[in-house]
């Protein structure tokens, strides 16, 4: 047992039984030598196993955006109607009359590749929590899916499992799934994409941010108990899928939409009660990331005692408790003296709440096991000092030359002279064919507000109690982005804007999910930087700022990377229900007009 003394003052104890810190162990946690050195410098000593775990999660791509943040900073994020831009659980825009809409997109690509049903279901669960922790009631879900060709039985298994997972979760919670897209392309064969978007409605004055504050305020764990699920999900999501990821597969997270529904009601009640100052989902990297991020935003310290965390299994170590990704849990900063009020609200919904720590003045992030300190970092540096990488982009020669080719030089097939043959071929391609099989499994009409559901260009959901509605859509085109990343990035935003506008809405803002390959490869880095630049340009011109999003990198396997696939989730405002426009032919005899160039 070693007892190194930390730069922050406490004696940090390595637990008996913890593995010895070796270069191999550090590497296994996805921490580079450079990052490890930075960590040792920050601590002024060798980290403990628990600390290695914390850092591997917080400095993973998934939590830290270390390869994408510099590029994301270039995106436009402001407009008079933006109440909350990127950096919170979800973005929020005002839609007038004191109403606001919160929305966010999230990927669950890697978990869905391993266990499609639970992977997709827990993806929906996570995005719902991101929205209701802002104080908004979720009113709509959308999803964007990419799979390999349906001719493969494994793809069919993934596809059916993902669709069922999304449906079962959203249906049970009672939030309508109102739109989405599905594309089949060989580039996604080994790495399916599952992006889910949630939209919520609230009063502007009910907006709450995940910022810890108030020295002495108790930190509470709320909702489901902590088990050994998904330990290292965040670092798992930050590496290529390989044979060995099968073996080192973290214990899969199982979603419980019933508990989620209770947690949703309890959380909204808590937020309105005035008994709490902040609330955040324990999502990727669970307790670790939620607590460290809340502390960093509030510029305060926190201390957490893992023995106080309600657990589902015996004998869990601090490492496991900190990194568990058990679902349907929240971290809450309550107002001192209101712990019992918080417990009472949770109890009403048959849920638990436990005080597990406290906000402290000392600028440290401290984890104890009883009275023993097992991890301690100099406060916000844990979050802010994560290295950021700016690499040299380089376009792939293959793609460059592909773009140079003249499509008209491709010799048409003989059959193509028969237009009905061509039409039939097109209409029967799974990507173009009707997606009814998918959306019939999603409850699209619960909440009695779906004015246009699946099957229209954009979904339209009315805002009950007003004459307004919002139009929602999700769009992306990986093949276009692959061939021409900047144009593809622009086009994705423009397509979303057209879909929203056609429904009678003014495009207001976007959220986005960047699904790309390994950013350390110059060709992928090129795609990423160009696509982001293109998206930014389109958003600036259309005045649809980016209020948040998510980045999913390392969508690669030994067969290669996916098409670079930014997906755009857009929200538009329909000022009057009279503006809602259908996207189907209405009557025999109506004129058909082609607009545009």
């Amino acid at each position: 047992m070693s007892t190194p003394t930390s730069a922050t003052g406490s004696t940090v104890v390595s637990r008996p039984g913890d593995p010895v810190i070796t270069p191999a162990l550090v590497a296994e946690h996805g921490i580079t030598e450079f990052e490890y050195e930075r960590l040792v410098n920050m601590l002024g000593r060798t980290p403990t196993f628990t600390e290695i775990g914390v850092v591997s999660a917080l400095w993973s791509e998934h939590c830290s955006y270390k390869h994408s943040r510099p590029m994301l900073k270039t995106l436009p994020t402001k407009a008079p109607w933006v109440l909350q831009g990127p950096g919170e659980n979800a973005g929020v825009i005002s839609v007038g009359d004191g109403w606001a809409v919160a929305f966010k997109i999230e990927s669950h690509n890697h978990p869905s590749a391993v266990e499609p049903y639970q992977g997709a279901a827990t993806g929906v669960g996570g995005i719902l929590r991101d929205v209701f922790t802002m104080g908004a009631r979720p009113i709509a879900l959308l999803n964007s899916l990419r799979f390999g060709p349906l001719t493969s039985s494994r793809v069919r298994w993934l596809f059916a499992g993902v669709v069922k997972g999304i449906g079962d979760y959203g249906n049970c919670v009672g939030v309508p799934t109102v739109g989405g897209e599905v594309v089949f392309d060989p580039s996604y064969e080994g790495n399916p994409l599952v992006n889910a978007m949630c939209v919520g409605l609230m009063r502007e004055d009910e907006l709450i941010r995940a910022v810890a504050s108030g020295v002495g305020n108790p930190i509470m764990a709320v909702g489901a108990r902590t088990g050994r699920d998904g330990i290292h999900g965040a670092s798992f999501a930050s590496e290529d899928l390989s044979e060995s990821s099968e073996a080192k597969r973290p214990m899969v997270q199982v979603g419980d939409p019933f508990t989620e529904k209770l947690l949703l009601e309890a959380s909204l009640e808590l937020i309105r009660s005035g008994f709490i100052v902040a609330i955040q989902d324990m999502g990727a990297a669970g307790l670790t990331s939620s607590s460290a991020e809340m502390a960093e935003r509030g510029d305060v310290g926190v201390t957490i005692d893992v023995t106080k965390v309600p657990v589902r299994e015996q004998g869990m170590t601090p490492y496991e408790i900190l990194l568990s990704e058990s679902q349907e849990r929240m971290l809450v900063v309550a107002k001192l003296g209101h712990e019992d009020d918080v417990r009472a609200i949770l109890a009403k919904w048959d849920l638990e709440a436990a005080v597990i720590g406290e906000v402290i003045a000392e600028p440290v992030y401290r984890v104890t096991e009883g009275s023993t300190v097992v991890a301690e970092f100099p406060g916000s540096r844990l979050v802010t000092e994560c290295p950021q990488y700016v690499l040299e982009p380089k376009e792939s020669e293959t793609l460059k030359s592909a773009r140079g080719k003249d499509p008209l030089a491709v010799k048409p097939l003989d059959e193509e002279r028969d237009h009905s043959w061509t039409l039939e071929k097109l209409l029967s391609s799974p990507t173009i064919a009707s997606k009814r099989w998918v959306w019939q499994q999603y409850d699209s009409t619960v909440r009695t507000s779906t004015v246009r559901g699946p099957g229209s260009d954009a979904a339209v959901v009315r805002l009950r109690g007003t004459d307004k509605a919002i139009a929602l859509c999700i769009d992306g085109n990986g093949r276009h982005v692959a061939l021409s990343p900047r144009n593809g990035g622009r086009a994705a935003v423009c397509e979303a804007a057209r879909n929203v506008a056609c429904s009678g809405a003014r495009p207001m803002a976007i959220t986005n999910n960047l699904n790309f390959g390994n950013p350390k490869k110059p060709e992928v880095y090129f795609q990423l930087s160009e696509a982001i630049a293109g998206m930014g340009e389109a958003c600036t011109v259309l005045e649809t700022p980016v209020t948040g999003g998510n980045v999913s990198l390392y969508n690669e396997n030994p067969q290669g990377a996916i098409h670079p696939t930014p997906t755009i989730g857009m929200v538009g405002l329909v000022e009057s229900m009279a503006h809602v426009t259908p996207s189907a032919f209405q009557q025999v005899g109506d004129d058909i007009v082609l607009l545009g160039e």
Partner: protein
Amino acid sequence: MTRFRCAIHIVPRRGILDPQGKAVADALHSLGFGAVGDVRVGRYVVVDTDAASADAARASVTAMCEKLLANPVTEDFEIASVEQA
């Protein structure tokens, strides 16, 4: 060839969340069955199959579980019985 009736138990793997089991345990408690501890809910599958022997039937059903019936990521299975039908 003889026809065998094979019974299979498929249960959520230990350590994996079993929301169904928890809901049933809670319900049993509130119905007054206070002595109930853990509850696990799984599936019970009965497969009739032709095979040369009971051992062959068992081997074949094991293969079915591995390939289709049980989810290798989240479930464990057990062949509960193999009997001549």
